[in-house]
């Protein structure tokens, strides 16, 4: 590190370079602000780096374009701003303090950044479930399977049990089959399939059985998973003795939902609230995406688990608001904000988004 670089001063810092963070960066750059994007991974893009499937949602948010292609568009958009948009990849934010000091580690070097404005777009982490021998090799979270397969071209196993029928579970099942992996069964603890029926039908047509009100009781194996035991759940979600069935699989893929990654928000002192419908603790944001800490904004999945399309719109909006608060004039600001808000409303209008609407309602955020 160069001398005097211990505390760097930056105008706007975005933590997390997923769909929300990259769109926020674009809004800020457009307004004329200097932006620093921090991401702990080598490749920017968050979940987009492994989303080989085509998006739903709206045309403005790249419906029918593959996630990995959307990522190229978002990165390309930022390239034109040159050094106005600094990228710190493979950099972990290890601490966030009230005075907007960001403690970072990159290549084993420790340094701090003092920012005027911070946008937290850290996304979410995968949830897990407890079952016997859940530490056996061969048990993965769905995101890990996607990373292995879609990003690095590594086959996770040959015979998979998928746990969870949300969109990720359904899409990853299909991607596993495309990679020549057998999806032996898909189990869902709830009484009905929770993802889009179009995704579910696709894998059902290919012969995958989806069992509802069923969960994994235990994994069996010496060095790695060799078998799994499933059981039926009663209406209180408890496993029923005597309902067990055994399957031969070498891989278990857990896809039971996501939880917002709010640790940095909590460190900085932003108030959070537990909203079940949004996936767990979420920051109390105002209609301009500002948290209870002035100058600290949040957008994307960290504010509630949704689709990447909504994350992109939220990112764009929070970038505009942050730029305005930094003193920049944004051309046509009112019209832009209005259009983005309408876009978001449309994305959250379907029956599948009822939960999201209920969640934001609880949080007291108008959507």
């Amino acid at each position, binding site marked *: 590190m160069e001398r005097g670089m211990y505390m760097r001063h930056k105008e706007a810092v975005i933590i997390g370079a997923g769909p929300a963070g990259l769109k926020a960066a674009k809004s800020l750059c457009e307004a004329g602000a200097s932006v620093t994007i921090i991401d702990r991974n080598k490749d920017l893009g968050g979940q987009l780096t492994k989303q080989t499937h085509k998006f739903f949602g709206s045309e403005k948010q790249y419906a029918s374009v593959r996630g990995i292609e959307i990522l190229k568009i978002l990165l390309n958009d930022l390239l034109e701003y040159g050094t106005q948009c600094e990228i710190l990849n493979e950099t972990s934010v290890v601490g966030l303090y009230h005075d907007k000091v960001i*403690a970072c580690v990159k290549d084993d*070097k420790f340094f701090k950044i003092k920012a005027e404005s911070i946008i937290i777009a850290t996304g979410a982490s995968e949830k897990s479930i407890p079952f016997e021998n*859940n530490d056996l090799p061969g048990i993965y979270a769905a995101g890990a399977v996607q990373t292995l397969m879609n990003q690095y071209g590594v086959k996770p196993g040959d015979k998979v049990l998928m746990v969870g029928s949300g969109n990720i579970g359904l899409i990853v099942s299909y991607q596993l089959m495309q990679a020549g992996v057998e999806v032996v069964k898909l189990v869902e603890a709830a009484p009905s399939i929770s993802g889009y029926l179009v995704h579910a039908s696709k894998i059902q047509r290919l012969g995958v059985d989806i069992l509802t009100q069923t969960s994994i009781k235990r994994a069996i194996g010496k060095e790695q998973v060799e078998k799994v035991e499933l059981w039926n759940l009663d209406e209180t979600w408890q496993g029923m003795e005597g309902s067990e069935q055994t399957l031969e699989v070498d891989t278990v893929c857990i896809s039971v939902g996501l939880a917002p990654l709010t640790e940095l928000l909590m460190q900085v002192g932003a108030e959070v609230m537990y909203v079940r419908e949004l996936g767990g603790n979420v920051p109390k944001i105002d209609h301009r995406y500002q948290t209870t800490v002035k100058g600290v904004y949040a957008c994307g999945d960290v504010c509630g688990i949704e689709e990447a399309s909504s994350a992109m719109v939220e990112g764009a909006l929070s970038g505009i608001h942050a730029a305005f608060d930094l003193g920049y004039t944004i051309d046509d600001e009112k019209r832009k904000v209005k259009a983005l808000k309408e876009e978001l409303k449309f994305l959250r209008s379907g029956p599948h988004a009822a939960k999201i609407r209920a969640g934001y309602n609880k949080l007291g955020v108008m959507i």
Partner: protein
Amino acid sequence: MDNKNVIICRCSDVTMEELYDLFDKGYTSFEELKRIKRVGMGPCQANTCGKMVQWELAKYLNKPLEDVKFQNYRPFTLGVKLNAIKEASEDEDES
């Protein structure tokens, strides 16, 4: 289910059985559990086990999830080598 073989916190190797033993002893908040058993204090910082502990606590206390307080987060989120901090602070002194 044999709770001895159910891992709740994989960073610190805490089982479901150990967790329930602590519940029975009266440790029924995340903050207490983490101080006693280091659950949630490893590299994942409760991002994997936290939700499971919260769920089990809700079941044990017969409370809705909303009423089970989650743990507090403090810096640092990752292990940082002392040498890195030392080098950085030397740089700060000189600049």
